[in-house]
């Protein structure tokens, strides 16, 4: 039996559909109820829905053997897991954005608002830029408008929210997509099962031209 942690929401549903096609079906997951754990003894699989940012914790601590989460989470928390496959879905990017026309003259400490504190610190440390990180939990875009910060480091999908708030992307930190991750110990003892899933999903990616 392999335990799979999926992120709640559209991304998780899309990934489940791919796993189903790869031979890891669990019909009960489609029933409309409030259950959180779904099992199919026949295909030897147990799925559960968790908060997207918690997937890596479930996998790292072995409650799930494998899971699917965004590269943003992996970069922020750096869990000790295997990153086995880029699922090429949920594509977006981590970017620095600021009010239109903002120019960083480097003369004073840069105020950075973000949910991704470690990502922001690492990015500016590599540049040797002194920053003041302001940790926010949501609506990051409002920070530069109200003068709380100079820039934000956040996930940008289409850029519509930024545009509507008179903000623009200054630079890309790294590209993001959903990744298939595995617990290192679980991988040793379920190698064949995990490889079978991997091969199935890889084939699907090839057939669909990278769109799950």
């Amino acid at each position, binding site marked *: 039996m392999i335990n799979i942690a999926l992120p709640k929401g559209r991304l998780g549903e899309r990934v489940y559909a791919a796993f189903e096609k790869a031979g890891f079906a669990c019909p009960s997951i489609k029933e409309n109820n409030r259950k959180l754990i779904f099992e199919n003894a026949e295909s030897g699989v147990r799925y559960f829905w968790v908060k997207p940012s918690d997937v890596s914790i479930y996998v790292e*601590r072995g409650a799930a053997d494998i899971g699917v989460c965004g590269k943003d989470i992996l970069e922020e928390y750096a869990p000790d897991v295997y990153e086995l496959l880029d699922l090429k879905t949920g594509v977006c990017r981590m970017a620095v954005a600021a009010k239109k026309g903002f120019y960083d003259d480097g003369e004073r400490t840069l105020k950075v608002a973000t949910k991704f504190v470690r990502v922001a610190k690492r990015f500016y440390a590599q540049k040797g830029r002194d920053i003041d990180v302001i940790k926010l939990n949501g609506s990051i875009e409002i920070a530069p408008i109200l003068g709380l910060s100079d820039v934000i480091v956040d996930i940008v999908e289409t850029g519509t929210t930024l545009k509507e708030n008179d903000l623009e992307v200054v630079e890309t930190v790294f590209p993001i997509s959903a990744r298939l991750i595995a*617990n290192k110990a679980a991988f*040793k003892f379920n190698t064949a099962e995990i490889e079978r899933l991997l091969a199935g999903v890889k084939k699907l990616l090839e057939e669909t031209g990278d769109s799950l």
Partner: protein
Amino acid sequence: MSETVLKKEEQVAFALRSLYKKYGYLPYKMSKFEAYDLYASNKDFLVGDGVITFTDTDGKLLALKPDVTLSIIKNGSDDGAKQKVYYNENVYRISGETKQFKELMQVGLECIGDIGVYDIYETLVLACASLAEISDDFVLDISHLGVLSGVLDEVGAGEAFNRAALRLVAEKNEHELQTLCAAYSVAQANTEKLLTLVRSYGDANAVLNALAPVCEEGKAAEAYAELKTLCGLLQKGGYADKIRLDFSVVNDMKYYNGIVFKGFIDGVFKSVLSGGRYDRLMARMKRKTGAIGFAVYLDLLEGFQRQRSAYDLDTLVLYDGNTSLEELIRAVDGAVAAGETVRADKAQGKLRVKKLVDLTTGGRK
């Protein structure tokens, strides 16, 4: 008796000490406090964890022992004889993740001196035997940093590339390794070599075959030969189905070189054993010889295969002021003689007991 009283981690600690002793390793006892300097200069050796520090009465900065290996190296001498020691110590660290203090029970061994193939073989056998003491369902992942650094030398893309590539190899992250190679304009043949290191894992013979074309010359070829010899010996030694080759075992190259390994137990979420050859750490600490060793993290076994008992005690003897002492003593002694766990008390409280012997006035009625 020992099985019911000792916890799993204590049973294992016991068995491991006797195992290492059998192979001629001597016990090493370290003091609880060490000068902080020792750890400050080799901080990364503790893999992301911090050191708990305080000042002594002279104002000197001390550390609550966070590790045993560094202390063993510091206190040893290069007098020619090999130093073979084992330890069983609690170490204290600040968790890199939660920033909380934590206590870890470690058992391990170190072999310091002129390290030859036999010493490496013996260390690997003892690593396997240590895992077997915990459970039959174990695997020992073995890697050789010589193979990795040999291939990276051939690529020759510089320090920053090597650091990033090693991290990706450790993650089995093929897709980003390809992107990284493209960004550094690494030749296709060398990219393939790196990818082979990620893709080849598992059965030793299969991996050695896949690796042969990757390790044809230089440092990688030497390392490959050593790896092959050791795998052959371990297979003959009865560990064929337990050892796997896996280059995702990437210990810090600042300290380690040569063979590195990690042990996994089915049912424990992370590696319970970790070790390798650390000549580089020796050199950093001004020692002239080589060294190899490993540690077993017994704290991870807490809860492993533990069966929650339905009872706290076999028998509870309830008594009050009217119970005759002779009768009470007879009841307790009788239960002890019958091999039961027994307690005499005036109330049951929340205790879960199999059998209740009520000698109170109410009970007699």
